[in-house]
């Protein structure tokens, strides 16, 4: 029960953090700017990729595929498993 409360609080704090990140300008991280190719140095960093850690993502996908009914969403491909 304590664990659940802790996780729910963490989730709520995360949302607050996300929505409250108006650090630089209105809209915060969701501000829409025209981005020129030479402005993309940050976005080219590995940590800014949509799947920056594929080895970990692959392991997580398998865990939750075998323990939950919902799966997918990130794309197509990858092998199946008869996970029990």
């Amino acid at each position, binding site marked *: 029960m304590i664990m659940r409360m802790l996780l729910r609080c963490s989730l709520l704090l995360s949302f607050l953090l996300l929505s409250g990140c108006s650090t630089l300008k209105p809209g915060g991280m969701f501000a829409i700017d025209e981005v020129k190719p030479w402005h993309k140095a940050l976005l*080219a960093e590995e940590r*800014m990729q949509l799947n920056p850690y594929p080895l*970990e993502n692959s392991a997580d996908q398998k865990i939750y595929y075998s*323990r939950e009914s919902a799966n*997918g969403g990130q794309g*197509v491909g990858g*092998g199946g498993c008869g996970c029990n």
Partner: protein
Amino acid sequence: MQLEDKKLPSTPSVRNALMVATCTVLSGSLSPASAEEEETTLSRLGLSTFYYSEENRVSVNTTHVAVENDLGDETIVRANLVYDTITGASPNGRIIPAQASGGSIPFTSASGFSVNVNSNGETGQRWLTAFTDKRAAIDLSLEKPLARMVKGTLEGSYSSENDFTSYGAAGTVAWDLHQRNTTITGGLGVLEESVSPRSGTPKGLAISNCNDTPAALASRPAWANCNITSPRFGNGEKRVIDSVIGITHVLNQRTVTQLNYSYGVSLGYLTDPYKFISVVNYELDAEEVIILYENRPDERARNSLYWKTVSQLSPKKVVDFSYRYFWDDWGIKSHTFDYKYRYDYAPRNYLQPHIRYNLQSSADFFQKAIDASVDSLPQYASADYRLGKLATYSIGIKYGKELGVNGLFAMRAEYIIQSYSGVELPNMRALVYQGTFTFKF
């Protein structure tokens, strides 16, 4: 040719430098929407060792080797090799015995299927089936430009377990727009899978075992004939087709976001041949009267909406947030939130806390047991906890360190709790450890 007649204006060197930089970037390999830069011109080797352990249930050891090689001209080949060893016990769908009866009741088998009913029952663990398995998987892909702003990826996969085989093929096309600030992605994948239990696949909702106690015999339903051996068939074959269409957009210099819609269908043998459903007499201390094999529909249509955003809050802080809404025609709906917060607390070192939350509703045909007083059986029934209402909470921490110029080491630990509303299973608790090493050369 007309350009040759034009002279470059005699402008300041800064302006020329910008023009050169622009042309270089536009003609180069930079793909801002997916934000892969010069690194894709390198080869990579990734190694991972992964340990997953559920309390009193399943343990999995995984070794994963990933290789990526740039053949030049933006053509990249990737290979993934995975080897799993799996041991432990998994809930099989049977109800947990009531305290009073303890589960040490005499059962007779109607099928000859090698499920150990009594020995597990005596320890009160008859709701678990012990098993061991090994899985080897290989995945190969080729990424290649199809046009100046379009690239395609072809992928083939194969995996094999003692009783399960999967062949897969997938193709993805990504089209960059608006100075590569937007990428439209479409993909299609097909899996051909086969499950091959040693004794064959059972007939859905056929009898596996019957309780022979006098009280159970007296309350045995009229539709149950325990004197006939249930039929068994060959391998269970299924085809899984998945499609995805998505848009990725660079919102600003620090944020990239993605929205995907996925649609998939599964056709064929979708029942789990190792899962049971208990027929219980609620007037007899809710004790099992009969054990049936579960039965699921042979079609399933799945949908999901997936949204992900990665943003740099400050030079040291990056957040990675995703939400997925999933629904299918079995009646399952699911919400999944995932949040990672990377903090580069020192040069070349970072910590990354992670939380994940999944809430799932149950399938229409899910029930924890069948009441022995019913006149006839439903068409479909499953007591597999994964089709029931459940919630999964995960919390973890990762430490990463750059090794030299080209190496990266990371280790992480996660704690997972899964709780159930539709079945009386104890919460599942699991620990995950993973170490990864990536080297570019």
